[in-house]
């Protein structure tokens, strides 16, 4: 779903191509001439539209000559990386960062299926390891840490106090799906706390889970500390560190990636990235 952003960038890219319109029009005139025998006013209207759509598609396919960095980042990094990308673009005029956000596991599948990623920031070193194993990627560097926390709707209507409440079947409780980093981490927390959780939904990424809690569709959910650190639409209940293992975020670039990709990784690890990550509730590695 977050791929929409890529599509939007592509769309805005087309607007810049309006200078080519003159040639497009020439083509459409010829097209009208060809179809003129049909003697239909509809064709005259449709032809430029079709030509414009096709040339827009062609423009999209050929956008690789633009100086863009395609960054695939874990859903939990959504806000932090949106800020970091803006700061990076401000410091590097002419370079555009395209963010593709989703669960680390879905991003891994996209990358392994050949999606054109320049940078991959994962919420799990296991998922990073499987991407590295497939080849083409540089040695990953850890840039942030995180832990889980309980998120409840504002006012905590179900009066949740701790991880034990996740065993109560009468509550509506959510976690991330198994295979998604926050979902695997949640299972680890339940295991360490010896809680048999009465889960009502397994969301496909942490952003989806947070949104459900914000809307009071769920009584509580296990999300990242970074998701609740600066979010006024949910309340946070911390878990003791003993049952709440720390997770690390690795980042890497891919073979044949541009100077810009390396620059982006350095920027994330550097002081500005560090500061923005910390503002969004991430820990230092």
């Amino acid at each position, binding site marked *: 779903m977050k791929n929409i952003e890529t599509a939007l960038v592509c769309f805005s890219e087309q607007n810049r191509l309006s200078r080519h319109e003159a040639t497009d029009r020439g083509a459409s005139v010829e097209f009208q001439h060809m179809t003129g025998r049909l003697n239909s006013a509809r064709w005259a209207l449709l032809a430029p539209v079709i030509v414009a759509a096709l040339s827009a598609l062609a423009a999209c396919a050929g956008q690789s000559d633009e100086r863009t960095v395609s960054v695939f980042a874990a859903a939990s990094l959504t806000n932090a990386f949106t800020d970091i990308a803006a700061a990076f673009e401000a410091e590097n005029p002419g370079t555009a960062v395209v963010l593709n956000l989703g669960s680390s596991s879905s991003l*891994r599948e996209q990358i392994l299926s050949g999606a054109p990623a320049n940078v991959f920031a994962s919420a799990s070193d296991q998922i990073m390891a499987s991407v590295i194993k497939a080849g083409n990627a540089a040695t990953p560097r850890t840039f942030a840490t995180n832990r889980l926390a309980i998120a409840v709707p504002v006012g905590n209507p179900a009066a949740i106090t701790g991880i034990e409440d996740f065993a109560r079947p009468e509550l*509506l409780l959510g976690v991330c*799906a198994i*295979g998604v980093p926050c979902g695997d981490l949640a299972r680890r927390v339940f295991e360490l706390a010896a809680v048999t959780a009465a889960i009502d939904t397994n969301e496909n990424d942490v952003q989806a889970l947070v949104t459900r809690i914000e809307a009071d569709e769920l009584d509580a959910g296990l999300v990242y500390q970074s998701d609740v650190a600066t979010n006024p639409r949910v309340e946070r209940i911390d878990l003791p560190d003993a049952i709440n293992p720390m997770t690390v975020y690795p980042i890497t670039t891919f073979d044949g990636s541009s100077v810009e990709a390396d620059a982006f990784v350095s920027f994330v690890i550097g002081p500005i990235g560090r500061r923005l990550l910390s503002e969004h509730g991430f820990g230092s590695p």
Partner: protein
Amino acid sequence: MNRNGVTPRAPWQLVGLALVAAALFVIPIVGLFSRAPWRRLPKLLASDLVTDALTLSLVTSIVAAALATVFGVPLAWLLARGTFRGRGLLRAVVTLPMVLPPVVGGAALLFALGRRGIIGETIDNLTGFVLPFSIWGVIIANVFVAMPFLVITVESALANLDPGYERAASTLGASPLRIFWRVTMPMIAPSLRAGIVLAWARALGEFGATVTFAGNLQGRTQTLPLAVYVSLESDRDSAIAISMVLIVVSMTVLVVLRDRWWSRT
């Protein structure tokens, strides 16, 4: 098919385009089956993930098709026969789920029937029952996306019905409800069957509204399409196996029904 014995030679342009169209459907299915993990297949298909999702999908899609019929036929009748203001608008609203992205439908259902929805909140306060994250959430999402297919099919059949038969029955003293059961329904039976099959098929494949409105929990709300989606990210072989189940179930039903009674008009 060729009753009068005259077959004009097929224009090659049409055949060419038709083959491209057919390839668009055939090639992806071939692609899916070419990646099938044949040796692990029995084990994958016997897993709880698959059996739970298959059972849930069959139950919810059949219940949804039944509900769509019980409520959809009267709605189709109202749209075809009713003479009230706003009928065109009502028809547009009823068919909206056919064009709406199912995710939008799921969100709309949440705002109406969710725990903080305009009706859902009252239901929760009065009974403590919450539709989302329950099997009823799946069924309602299914009915929402599937019923329009039934309504459209039945409505057009009703609209094309010769009113003479119903009038004759009325002259002979049959009550309106009796006319509906004994005259109208038998005459639209083929369309009704087609509508039920279409609605069922749409419900079986439903994903977006379900995942948005009902969430995702194995054995309760995780239908086959949701299981495919979840597995695509953790276990591709499982995802392919479940997709094959969906294809085989759908194909079997469509082929069998088509032979049995769908096309028997």
